[in-house]
């Protein structure tokens, strides 16, 4: 399911609208994932057990993750190259099971809908969903 010109346009347009809140969206999404999908906490055991949207490390890390998404938006025409360094990081150092990218994507989408209910129309939703799938794909490139 590759990104059409329309998908790319929708993603860039929506990103421009939400860019200012990207850090907050990331913090919410990561925190919600850790609460609603407790198995994902296994990657963050060094931060403690009770992790949520208010945990300082979670908030900071949510911002870092959205920085990666920002990079992906800029490299939307060649995600494989754009994400190559991050892919190596996830493949060789972090070794995050790629199934978790889908779980985080769901939470990012949910928070986008919460913060921008009028703008996150079904048309925007489908393009963003496809985009995040492609980002996950690019991020898994170097795994094996």
């Amino acid at each position, binding site marked *: 399911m590759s990104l059409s010109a329309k998908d790319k346009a929708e993603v860039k347009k929506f990103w421009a609208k939400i860019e200012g809140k990207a850090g907050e969206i990331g913090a919410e999404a990561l925190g*919600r994932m850790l609460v609603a999908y407790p198995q994902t906490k296994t990657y963050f055991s060094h931060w403690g057990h009770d992790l949520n949207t208010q945990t300082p490390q979670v908030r900071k890390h949510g911002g870092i993750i959205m920085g990666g998404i920002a990079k992906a938006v800029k490299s939307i025409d060649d995600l494989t190259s754009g994400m190559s360094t991050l892919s190596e990081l996830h493949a060789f150092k972090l070794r995050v099971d790629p199934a978790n990218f889908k779980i985080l994507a769901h939470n990012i*989408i949910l928070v986008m809908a*919460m913060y921008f209910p009028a703008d996150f129309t079904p048309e925007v939703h489908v393009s963003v969903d496809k985009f995040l799938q492609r980002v996950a794909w690019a991020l898994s490139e170097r795994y094996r």
Partner: protein
Amino acid sequence: MVEWTEQERSIISGIFGNLNYEDIGPKALARCLIVYPWTQRYFGAFGNLYNAEAIKSNPNIAAHGIKVLHGLDRAVKNMDNIKATYAELSVLHSEKLHVDPDNFKLLSDCLTVVIAAKMGSAFTPETQATFQKFLAVVVSALGRQYH
């Protein structure tokens, strides 16, 4: 047997007690058909689904969205036996409607997004976790009678 805390029961009955079925049902189903267009395969007889605008304004889809959402009421009323409550509906979806059970999760995700957008910050992480747990149990029960 699924265990529900008092807090979880209260969250679920709270959400459904305050739900505007006529608003949320159509929005959730339309979003599912737009975001996951292959789900349109089950709605060949529903009229014009040609584009997002057509789907959003299609009265048959709207009516069906309300019907599906009310279908969740019986789970809300029978939280301690969702499995048995949906046995008949599971057979219906399998043998009569021939719906691929993977689709239940897609609709459930769209419903979660629509409710989150409606409730805003009231849709706390704990509310999200409880609501998703509830829908996961419903989805599992609906897929149980497939063979």
